[in-house]
């Protein structure tokens, strides 16, 4: 298992090199000059030319790429063209914001999705099953943008229950050390702020978690249906175990592997693809960091941002793979 883990970690290197090469080529294929974008439509050509030179944009592409990779190898993610900040420090708050939101969305998606799926399978063709699966179908095809705006309209504007934007009360900013607000507020002993930050998570978390929830519910249901038909399930039932034990301990445990795979893939998607949710709810996460960078042709930020997202994606898949053998000891590496 250790050998397997190390082998998988080593495989990260070619994956990331490939990633960075593709990203680099694509962003340099998009027409548009960063200096022009930074200075805007009212800039003089002289100003643009001198900024290009300063930013090293007039170097050949392979030199730019070489410089970039050389930096990465020394643990330097580069400097943003636009803000002139070090990306390795600049990216941390964004990353924390995204991870916090992703974890919340995932907890929501897994709890609701798995349970809905299990019950649907257990009571196949019942009203619950039909309702849950229709909701799941709607959930999968739900435009996040619309869902988010509706949530804001109902829960923030009309009912006034939940805040419409941001990570905390803007009038009472959270003092940050880890950039995870739910942790920082506890460190600071501000439990009122913890509660506020938690409330800020709810709407974007649900918006973000809706699609994964629906996918997880459908996957759990079909996986469970398969298991429930197995002979050993009838045996467990025949020996008089409680329904709860039958379903969860014997049923779900055997149905969990495909569900876990889906959860892993969805987590990766959430980490990188939260852009819409982050935009609607003004959540300063990594999706927006990279998005803003694309609009501004901020090459180093695009590259490093995507590299970080890709790394997380690969790591999560690794964790999922390792979990397989923990859950099902028959799986060996």
């Amino acid at each position, binding site marked *: 298992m250790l050998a397997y883990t190390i082998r998988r970690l080593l495989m990260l290197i070619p994956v990331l090199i490939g990633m960075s090469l593709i990203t680099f080529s694509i962003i340099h294929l998009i027409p548009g000059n960063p200096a022009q974008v930074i200075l805007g439509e009212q800039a003089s050509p002289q100003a643009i030319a001198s*900024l290009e030179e*300063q930013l090293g944009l007039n170097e050949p592409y392979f030199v730019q790429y070489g410089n970039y990779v050389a930096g990465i190898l020394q643990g330097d993610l580069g400097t943003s063209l636009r*803000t002139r900040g070090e990306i390795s420090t600049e990216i941390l708050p964004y990353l924390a914001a995204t991870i916090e939101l992703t974890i919340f969305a995932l907890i929501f998606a897994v709890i609701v999705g798995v349970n809905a799926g299990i019950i649907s399978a257990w009571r196949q063709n019942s009203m619950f099953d039909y309702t849950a699966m229709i909701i799941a179908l709607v959930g999968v095809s739900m435009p996040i943008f619309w869902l988010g*705006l509706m949530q804001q309209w109902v829960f923030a504007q009309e009912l006034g229950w939940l805040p419409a934007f941001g990570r905390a009360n803007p*009038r009472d900013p959270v003092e940050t050390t880890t950039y995870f607000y739910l942790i920082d507020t506890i460190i600071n002993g501000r439990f009122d702020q913890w509660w506020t930050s938690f409330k800020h998570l*709810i709407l974007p978390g649900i918006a973000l978690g809706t699609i994964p929830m629906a996918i997880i519910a459908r996957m759990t249901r079909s996986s469970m249906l398969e298991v429930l038909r197995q002979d050993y399930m009838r045996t467990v039932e025949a020996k008089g175990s409680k329904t709860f034990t039958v379903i*969860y301990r014997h049923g779900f445990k055997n149905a*969990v592997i495909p569900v876990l795979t889906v959860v892993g893939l969805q987590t990766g998607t959430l980490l990188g693809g939260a852009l819409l949710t982050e935009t609607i709810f003004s959540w*300063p996460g990594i999706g927006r960091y990279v998005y803003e960078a694309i609009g501004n042709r901020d090459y180093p930020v695009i590259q490093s941002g995507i590299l970080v997202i890709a790394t997380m994606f690969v790591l999560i898949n690794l964790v999922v793979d390792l979990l397989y053998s923990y859950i099902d000891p028959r799986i060996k590496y």
Partner: protein
Amino acid sequence: MRKKSLWMWPLSVAMVASLAACGGDDETAGDEDTGENGEDTEENGGDDANGDLAEDQTLIFARGGDSVSLDYASVTDGESSRVTKQIYESLLEFDADSFEIGPGLAHDWDVSDDGLTYTFYLEEGVTFHDGTDFNADAVKLNFERWADPDHEYAFIDDGYTYSVYGTQFGGFQGDDGHVIDEINVIDDYEVEFVLNEQLGSFIQNMGMSYFAITSPAAFEEHGSAINENPVGTGPFKFVSWSRDDQIVLEKNEDYWQEGYPKLDSVIFQVIPDNSARLTALRSGEIDIMDGLNPDDVDAIEGEDGLTVFERATNNIGYLGFNMDKEPFDDVLVRQALNHAVDKETLIMTLFAGLAEPAKNIIPPDYLGYNDNVEEYAYDPDRAMELLEEAGYADGLEFDLWTMPVARPYMPDPQRAAEVLQENFNAIGVTANIHTEEWATYLERTEQGEQDVFMLGWSGTNGDPDYFYGNLLHGDAIPGGNRTFYRSEEADELFNRGKVSVDEDERDEIYKEAAQVVHEDAPMIPLVHSIPVLAGNERVQNYVPHPSTSESLHEVELTE
């Protein structure tokens, strides 16, 4: 799997419970007290005539994008200067709602008879937020920092550029056109600028937020991190900045203007989505929102507790002709197309009435605005006559380049293009809408690949030269002049206007220039748009400035 099944149920119960509990105490009401600002209301006691000031004097200003940098001189975006305007001050300041210049950090100024020496008399007893004294040395240091690429605080190696300085003062130290020859410190509170040629807009430039004064000690302390550690003399002090989220400023208790600022703190909050920003305003979470969609104005005006703020117009949205290409080298064709456009309909459908039809290139209220220019009236018949005269009786076809992004002067370029397309269609002219990605659009129109293109320009210092010199002067090719308009007559007028320091004379010159440009018709001036903001009615004394950066020192909140 037992572990999992056991913790799963309680968690889901907790989730439901917490969702339900959220209705209890809400912080979305907007008037909640953070606990820190509650005590100091006595300070308002003196001038508390209306008696109903809110206890929490924290203003939240929501906008679509974040600032790029808080070093105002090294960036050009309005979102940066909107914030630095609160922290920093310039030698002179514009009026609250116009470009009328008045005293700022300098209470008085003189111009020598030859128009080459400007002397500024500085306010005494002003200190920067770090306690450093504001004086003539600080002024000299700041200007030299922008002019001299080798200056120790120019930070060129860290990617700093001062493009606005270059544009306004003819380049940098050592360049041919650079007008500031030397800066002399006469004494602590008197500083003299010696120019090597006259510059008509010099005084206007001094009011720009791009030329505000930073504490010399802060350069020493923060170096190139000055963009994240701004230290000025303004009404508000910098507290914190979390990127793409919020910038927090607090009251400068030692502000040199007695009794100001009124607010305890100002928060610039980023909310990228327009509808989400409006929702936040309606739910009371924010006080002012920028970038209100013109279509929403009517709704807001009818709502209790909300109000609309109009910003004085300071821009031009236009359709430019590429005069290097046939048939747009023919003045008759250009005039014909001018007659074809129905500006009123455009304004009603796209701007919800919040724009003025344009006939000059510069905005109304500007020095040199020529109201006597007789605009090309909407007259399709006349347009067709002119086309026939030019030899295009059978019509013509061209690509109508359309901007991919909304700008203040053009909130919905795609729809505008469709309206214009219809207008041209009515006189037998086929306009094919063509669009490019923004940066490419700017590059390719600069290189002259377009036929007819949509673009605009916003003023920064209220001076006509900023429009004419950049948009229509032959020297601005390649550059801002994308129409490739080359007129000796107009260039001569622009040159004279640029250097003259006599206001009346400049007014005459630019009026004449407006007439020349009108007749040559290098572009179709479409609109001067009026940007709108929405806010809570609790916000008092908020006056949007045409430059898009206004000081909030007089603003206060009522209950």
